[in-house]
């Protein structure tokens, strides 16, 4: 976890992916492989083996699609803000934000432990409503986040 910033009464916990490359890095990589792949295919096409070209196209489409899918999820995150007597959980998926508000005094943090090959879960619950959080986290991280949330909620 990184050092906290902001006032202690108005703090947000953000859960997001760890990324070791930048968008521009990924674009640079894709551009280079497109150049190499189509360069090779064009060379063969000019020498009569044009059938290589559509296969290069299909392959680059699959690679491009995979990178687009990856890129679309780069901004996915969950922000949990405790502000006075309110707890706001924002789930951002594919750029869309779903906002869930709970009463700080009624909100419960529920951890389902993982067992064997099954992952556990982490959710915030109150008055029959439940929001799953921590999808990006491993089981140990979920437990740590749950403890941190409970500490901040004062439960």
């Amino acid at each position, binding site marked *: 976890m990184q050092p906290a*910033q902001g006032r202690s009464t108005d703090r947000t916990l953000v*859960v*997001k992916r760890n990324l070791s490359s930048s968008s521009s890095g990924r674009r640079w990589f894709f551009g280079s492989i497109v150049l190499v*792949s189509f360069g090779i295919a064009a060379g*063969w096409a000019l020498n009569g083996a044009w*059938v*290589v070209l559509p296969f290069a196209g299909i392959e680059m489409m699959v690679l491009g699609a995979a990178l687009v899918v990856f890129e679309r999820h780069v901004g996915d995150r969950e922000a949990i803000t405790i502000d006075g007597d309110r707890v706001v959980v924002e789930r951002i998926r594919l750029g869309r934000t779903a906002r869930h508000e709970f009463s700080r005094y009624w909100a419960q943090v529920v951890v389902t432990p993982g067992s064997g090959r099954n992952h556990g879960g982490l959710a915030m619950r109150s008055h029959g409503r439940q929001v799953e959080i921590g999808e*990006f*986290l491993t089981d140990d991280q979920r437990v740590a986040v749950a403890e941190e949330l409970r500490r901040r909620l004062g439960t």
Partner: protein
Amino acid sequence: MEAVHGHGHEHDHAHYPGGIMRWVTTTNHKDIGTLYLWFSFAMFITGGLLAMGIRLELLQPGMQYWRPEFFNQLTTMHGLIMVFGAIMPAFVGFANWQVPMMIGAPDMAFARMNNFSFWLLPPAALLLVVSFFVPGGATGAGWTLYAPLSVQQGMGMDMAIFAVHIMGASSIMGSINIITTILNMRAPGMTLMKMPLFVWTWLITAYLLIAVMPVLAGAVTMLLTDRHFDTHFFNAAGGGDPVLYQHVFWFFGHPEVYIMILPAFGIVSQVLPAFARKPLFGYSSMVYATASIAILSFIVWAHHMFTVGMPAAGQLFFMYATMLIAVPTGVKVFNWIATMWKGSMTFETPMLFSVGFLFVFTMGGFTGLILAITPVDIQLQDTYYVVAHFHYVLVAGSLFAIFSGIYFWLPKWTGHMYDETLGKIHFWLSIIFFNVTFFVMHFLGLAGMPRRIPDYAEQFADFNMIASIGAFGFGLSQLLFLYVVVKCIKGGEKAPAKPWEGADSLEWTLPSPAPYHSFETPPIVK
């Protein structure tokens, strides 16, 4: 604002199925790595049995057991199965198991695609194996599937073409996954130049695979359309050019050789420092040498075709370009030796296989250098000298590195130590029988024995008998390997988190066996 960085892998909380469905539906990188490795072993045994069939026929001169057509099928399918079914999937299996653990990621970037890319392989393997039983039998055109022979064969050829297509698609998806994982999911602090060399070699291999797989797909598709749709890409009678096929095939085929050896370099680069108890000598130069080999692999393909006919300038270019590869390869060999120099070396089985690799692979490299010389190659083209050369590179190179890697990481994978005595016996049997089998082939080739023939002149009889006895011994030795692995899976001394004193990459920070979901706490690399 406080940020918690997850690993970028969304988990569903549904319970995973057990039994056989666990393996069919799994998206876990360790499960998929295990599937790849067992598939590869099954193909290794299948391809090995075909090799036994080849050596049985060649044990003595004269036609003993097989028809010449069936002998051709044996050599062809042995090559196809070993290259596409055994060696390549084995390295993908290593990548699946090791890359996420070595970079501190919980899994591969596209877990479902990972499952799909594995499950494409069994149907492809089935196509290859079943083709023996269709009218006309399997293709006997050689693993290179040269036109015009491959344009004329029966439906076994079509099955081989489809199998190659499917395996190619699997490789492409595997490569996309590996590249995306390595580029995006490294632990905080792990810059590219801090990655373990195995990860580097796989990053470069995956790039190579993506670059050349469309070329193979195009080549075999043109064969298919020549066979069934009246095109004439390779049919001289229709204005086509059979030599074009050779150019296209080897433009794929030579990088393919490096696709099969670069991950082996990566494994050896992990094992040698661990048992020499010294850091890898010249890490940066190893990375640049790997990249140089990959780049050079695109400009040497026609050294496979010196006898086909090409202008003297072309012969010179491809001869010198091929010789140039000895420079980065030499950098690697000297770096490995320098790594061991004055190290506190111990010789457990992984180290034995890596040192064995270094010794015999270098011999294969030297014969490659000899074959790069155009006038020499013209004499030795399609002789047993070439068979000896590429088996020194692919068996003593790729396969010995695979054995080394399996013994190295088996404690991490299973949680048990393997039987060291049996492992060492496996090594000594393998290296002795390997040399008994293939060293004599150099002499056969120098004496002029052509490859891919079921019968031969009396003068070649003695060396062929030695090679066949060596091959049977080598084949039987691999049953010992199976026994050691199964014994280790079933039990044995409990393995510590880091069973090898000098090992230092991230996977050794995990307990043994590695937990199903690794890196519950993301590591920080300093």
